[in-house]
């Protein structure tokens, strides 16, 4: 994964000082968080990606207009048991991608509960993107088949192809369970960016990260926290106070909020 830094088309090797953006991916297990990151960072896809343990950490640089952004990506594990660890990853994050699976209605519910949690507990200025993944499964044939994850949901169509032993959903196509309009309406209401993606064919993946980058007040990050990090000066606005020693970063985040309100 060390090759991450020089892969991808918009990625550049720059000697410009990059802006660091901490981004966290959240969402139900197996919706494709790791796959999205893998697509973004390495432009790859694995059919049988193993579940994430705890969280994976990856970085990716990309250029936005005249700036270089270094995404520090925390790809968290979606299994419920890891839920209690999530705050550890999303605190101090400037951006969050909350992922659901368009073929699984319950994953949107989980996404909503993540959004709720982020809006209450995370950095108040956090940019949240809601992302419906696996659209490749629904854009093609409309052959309906019960998915292994969606057993409870699509009761109307379980009669077909029962004798099929093959568990490989990808080849068959499954029905969409989350209409674009529904999710997009919710995103609008909750003030989120909204995307539909496919980690498998790459559709929409880059946009997610670019749009996030656009929405984040990069200037501010550059001048406050990260500046402090690079230049060894504590605190923002050139002010050094006693508290920053203990939680300089968090303080930076709060400053962000103030800046954004302007």
């Amino acid at each position, binding site marked *: *994964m*060390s090759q991450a830094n020089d892969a991808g088309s918009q990625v550049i090797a720059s000697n410009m000082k990059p802006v*660091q953006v*901490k981004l966290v991916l959240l969402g139900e*297990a*197996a919706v494709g968080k790791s796959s999205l990151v893998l697509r973004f960072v390495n432009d790859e896809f694995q059919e049988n990606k*193993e*579940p994430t*343990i*705890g*969280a994976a*950490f990856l*970085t990716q640089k990309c250029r936005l207009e005249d700036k270089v952004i270094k995404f*520090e990506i925390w790809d968290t594990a979606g*299994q*419920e*048991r*890891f*839920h*209690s*660890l999530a705050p*550890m*990853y999303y605190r*101090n994050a400037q951006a969050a991608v909350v992922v659901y699976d368009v073929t699984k209605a319950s994953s949107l519910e989980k996404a909503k*509960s993540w959004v*709720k*949690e982020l809006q*209450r507990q995370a950095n108040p200025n956090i940019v949240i993107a809601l992302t419906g993944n696996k659209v490749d499964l629904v854009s093609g044939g409309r052959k309906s088949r019960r998915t292994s994850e969606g057993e409870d949901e699509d009761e109307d169509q379980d009669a077909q192809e029962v004798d099929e032993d093959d568990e490989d959903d990808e080849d068959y196509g499954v029905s969409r369970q989350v209409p674009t309009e529904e999710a997009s309406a919710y995103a609008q209401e909750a003030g989120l960016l909204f995307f539909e993606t496919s980690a498998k064919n790459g559709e929409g993946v880059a946009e997610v990260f670019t749009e996030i980058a656009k929405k984040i007040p990069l200037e501010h990050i550059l001048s406050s926290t990260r500046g402090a*990090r690079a230049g060894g000066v504590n605190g923002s606005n050139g002010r050094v106070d006693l508290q920053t*020693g*203990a*939680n*300089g*970063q*968090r303080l930076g985040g709060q400053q962000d909020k103030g800046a954004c309100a302007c």
Partner: protein
Amino acid sequence: MAHHLKPPQHVFILPTPCDQHNPLFDTVQSTENFVLQRTKASKSQFLNSFLGTIQNVFDTKQAPFRILFRRQVNAQSLMIAEAETQKSIDQAWSWVQENFVVGLQVLDDAQEKEEWVLTKIRSLVTRADKGTDDITSDEKVRSASRAFRQTFNVLPSERLVSYYSCSYHSKMMNQGWMYISENYLCFYSFMLGMETKIFLELKDIGDLQKEKSKRGVFADAVRVVMKDGQEYFFSNLFHRDETYDLLVQLTTLTMERLLRNTALEHAPGQSNGDDGEGVKDVFSVDVDSLDSNESAYSPAPTTRPLRLGLEEQKRDSQFQLRFNLPISEHLMEESSATMVLGDKTDMFHGRVYMSESFLCFVCTDADPCVLALPLFTIRRVERMNSRSAMYALNILSWHQMRIVFRLNGPRTQCEKFCSTLKTNLKLQVRAMRSLKPFLATCFSEALLADRPDVAEKDSGLGWIFEFPGDPKKLKNKSKTKLWLQYFKDNGRNLTMTKMATFPKLIRVGLPNKLRGEIWEACSGSLYLRSMNPGEYTKLLKDNEGKMSLSLEEIEKDLNRFVAVNLISYQSEEQAFWMLNVLCDRLLPGYYSTSMYGALLDQTILEHLLEKTMPILSKHLKKVDVQLSVACLPWFLSLFINSMPLVYAFRVLDCFFFEGPKVLFQIALAILKVNGDELLASRDDGAFMDVLKKYFNTLDESAFPNSTNPKARALTKFNELMLVAYKEFESITPELVAELRRNHQLKVVHNIGSFTKRSQLRNIAPGRFSKDEMSVIYDRFYSALFYGRPQARGSNKQGEARALDSTTFVSFLGSIAHWAQVEDDQVDGDESVTVGNSPGHRRRGSNSTTATARERRRIVGRHFISRLFERFDQNGTGLLSLQEVTTGLDDIIHGDLMTRMQLFFDMHDLNKDGTLNRDEILGMSESLLFIFRFDDGDTYLGAISNFIRNAFEFAEKVESPKKETSSIDLDADKSETSEKKDGAEEEETKENGDITEEDKSKSSSPSEEPEIQMSLPSFRMVVLADETLEQFFDSGFANSCKLLEPVDRQRGLFAREVFDSLLSEGRKLAGSIAGGIQSRGSSGRSQSSTLATSSSATLTGRTSPSASLSDKSTSGGDADDSKSSLTLTSSQGGEKSAGQAGNVHDEYEDEDEDDDDDAEGDDLLDEVDKFLTEFDLESGGKKNLGLLSATDEDGSSSP
């Protein structure tokens, strides 16, 4: 007849010899065979002894009342019952009279008589008190248990584990007793007229600390910190360490249950739930095993104190841990011994242990040498004559290895050891048969047979494809050679002894083909696999086709991660047993739903970092980086996720041999080696980068610039292992175990509060405040926790997070006092009312009382179960937290109208939108049930009004018969019908006579005109009565107490207790006297049938009246009558002990409640009697009276 009367509980004891002519006791009653006695003190200091309570009794170890059996065989008597209260002893006495007198007349032989009586008593005791300490053979424990049970309002099934004399420090020092039971830590003292009761739930304990006593001189104190921060300091503990260890053990068990049974765990966490290992509830295991060796009729049924069971359990688990044995092994024998291996002359001094199927040895000298030899691998044992030791066992193992044990112990001990060995060996025959096929799956056998290239048919994927890494670079060949030699010298697979060279061979890394087997041998999973041949295949076959939930879980579970990698080196079956050991023993709680174990170890890691690398630890805190961000995945995936595989497997080699402490050592070493760079990183991103880079260069030289070629050859991984073992040598398994013990409570509570927060976030709170929601949450899970402590099979998701009908009762009881329905277990107490209750003077009240109570209980249960159905919106038969919240919200925050609607709907059983006669009566019974603790007169009137008005305003369906007669309030209850529903029907049948009467009456239903009351008329009826209106408007809602304790709070001081007792007593006496007077007429007008039936029941029971007259002769003044009332109420205390619910809130005013209870009972009985009596009397004409009244009133009302 006799069988109607159930024996009272907790009164009969195992027959104990004692002297009948004890100067401290007066004989109150005596028959040919039995004597009823009371202490002299109890008469004169009657009130005192009540106030000083049971504790005094406990101190003197004598209950004030007892029943003796007069032996005719010799002069000594046998005590068969003892009790704190006259009521209890009277009940017991009556029972004895009813059940023994006739039988004893039939038998002539004294010996026979005695046996008959004793058998009966014993079986009674064992059956009734199964699982409690009341039947322990230890008399002291028995009386402590009794004192505990009666002082604290606990369920009868709660078992006392131990009790200690100690002091509690509040403003002053209180000397008293500490009681430790399965679920609670309690303290009681009664000093200088001041009573101190402390009642703590083990599940709420957040920390336990050993401390020096206040003066700092003696290390004899324990500090208990609750999860809410409240602290308790106990000192003067003579067995402080024992107390502490016991508390730690019990809280650990409680935590495990808490994790399993409540919100914290909800999915099938254990991969091996199917074979039932490792997930058993320890208490139930204990109790089960104790019960199994005694039938209810066995001649000497004694239960060992629970404490012994716990100690044994602890010893066994230490034994299993030490030798990596399956949990089915129990330590049976041990002895100091000397071992000689093979033809060598080395002698190892140590201890030899024996369990069902193992002979184990561990060297206590400096030389490490450990052997756990399965008995089924023993070919032959000889007892040798040797000069140095009297007993020497010469063992020939399956692999033809000679092992000699010289037992160095007293002769008897050695004899016992040998005979146990003999017995155990005999039981191994079957296992021996499967040994040969098993060994065929071990690569070590192939290696020794010199066909090392034969691929076993069931082996790891590595055999078929390729093992990770370059075998040459790994020095596979030479390593294999070393192992071959080791096997020759020290045995192999099942018979292998772990000598000093063993760890060295492990640490250099295992050769590929041997890896799987040596992992098994190190972790003990080899034993599991060899002892369960075919189990795995069977499991697969049984589950063929069905995708079981747990398999699916494993599929996408964390385990998959490790499993996938094990399978390179091991067959599926090997990996299966390996995972088993991994989840149960090596990393308990890691792969459960809450990952409790993993989180605990993270806390410990942080603690260790702080201790060993304070600068780094401080730096991380400063830059706000959480260690777990990097380290949790290391532990969860055993580094497989982080390090290149070749190295991860090297770590696994050490881990399976040395256990989890290795993970800590390596983790700390990683941090240490990268210390400088980590100190330079200022956020978690940079932190992660450093570590990632390090893991990717583990194969590089640690000292690339060194001039020494040897140093240059040292890789970073080698360096890591050196640092891990050398610099973090101090991290021993014992230290890890101790740290886990010290931190576990905190971690569980943290998980708990996190779970609580996140669950509450997703609950629609209705109109409840945050604090109220918090209380609802706590009581909800508390009901689950205590509701089914032994819920083992609750693997189904959701089940553990929802209330069923039983747990709902206790939940509701913890919110509303009226919902505290007596537990089934106190039925015995309940149904036997041999009157010394004041009411018994009225003839015939006894059977009515019993019936009424029984019926009230049934009414209550029905009411609550209908409420349950209302709450259960999706009809699953289980209530989620959301459903309970919504349901309560409706009740508490709904308005007058919604609550009336609720009651209406709940009682409209046939769902026809109206209430008919039965349903109206059902409603009034429900109201009576709810009001039963309240001041009786107002509600009595209100309900009478309700019935009258309901019948009045209801629409008549059939042509009503009109007969005119003026009626008063009493008479209007003549209009009743007896059948409420099925359960009640059953219940009534038990009372033979009454049922007959009922039947004859109900057989002519046509005479009763049916009526229908609509919801509007119901509202009108309610609103017409101030009391009822108030009840529906606010009273019912207010009966649900969330933020205040369920029961009225009262002071702890004896003075207050005393005062209120007196006033309650007066009130009670007054109200009952009033009741008797005002109901006198109706009492007299009881039907003759009823009178006869009750007096029939009473025949032969001389004691009640005797005890009563006894009381009245002892004074006859006001005080004395009060004392008898007091006695009654204290008896009520025993009853209410059966109630589940928030015990914590109740304990303080236990006594008062009982008063109320008793009072409520009596008043309720009154009303109940009216409701029932008129059934009996209304032989056809009575009901007409009401109708005419209806007409009259109807015409007079505007």
